């Protein structure tokens, strides 16, 4: 796949991120909202990797290995944070379901004053 340029990957990331943002606003099922957040995180990961592959590094840093690696490192940490976020978030959804026997997102107004 050498014929691609950076803009192709950025377009795919942009479309996926926009679909995820629309889903977070439109849907009412909290589990689907979580899925849309994962979709947005993955779009950002794709953008990180595309930039890591395509953008030139400065000549002063070109011989150091970590100058190419920062995008991939960010993706590793985003994956770790996403795993922790999903575990805690689904735990919260389970706790709310046990408390109220429903998970309609519009009925979750415990924090509203």
């Amino acid at each position: 796949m050498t014929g691609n340029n950076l803009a192709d990957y950025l377009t795919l990331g942009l479309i996926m991120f926009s679909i995820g943002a629309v889903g977070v606003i439109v849907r009412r099922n909290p589990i689907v909202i979580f899925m849309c957040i994962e979709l947005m995180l993955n779009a950002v990961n794709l953008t990180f990797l595309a930039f890591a592959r395509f953008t030139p590094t400065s000549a002063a840093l070109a011989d150091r290995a970590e100058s190419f690696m920062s995008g991939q490192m960010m993706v590793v940490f985003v994956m770790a944070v996403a795993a922790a976020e999903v575990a805690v978030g689904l735990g919260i959804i389970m706790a709310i379901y046990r408390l109220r026997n429903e998970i309609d997102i519009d009925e979750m107004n415990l924090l509203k004053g």
Partner: protein
Amino acid sequence: MTVFMVLSAIAILAALGVVLFSSPVRSALCLVFNFFTLAFIYFGLKTELLGITQIVVYTGAIMVLFLFVIMLLNLGGPQTWKERFEFRTVLGFGFGFALAAVIASQVFANFQYFDKPQAPDSFGSPQALGRVLFTHYVWPFEIASILLLIGIVGSIMLAKRKL
């Protein structure tokens, strides 16, 4: 190029399916498709280790967790509440199109000409990634492990019968 086009078309269709299907199980399966195709796009970017990690972590662990909660809460059947059509739907789609238009108009004119990969082909190999992860990025790595530990403790606390 054609491979990338086919993969990205599948990814976009699957992403649309996540938002548009009313059954959460179908949304979850569409999300699995999306993550899987994204892993192959990562392979095309020569970041092999992260592509495999994508398959293992996202489609393996996170989506199993999602499906587990859907089955446990018994949400897989017909929807218990209707997705109403209301003003928020229009607002959401308008916001999405506006977001896409703003990013596209600001970004793409500058990135058309980056068509040559600058990083070496071996930059996504496990050797290269592991060497940098355990030397230059060792502090963030340790902090990420502490974060995962806090996540474990938090989800156990939330799952207890009495808080």
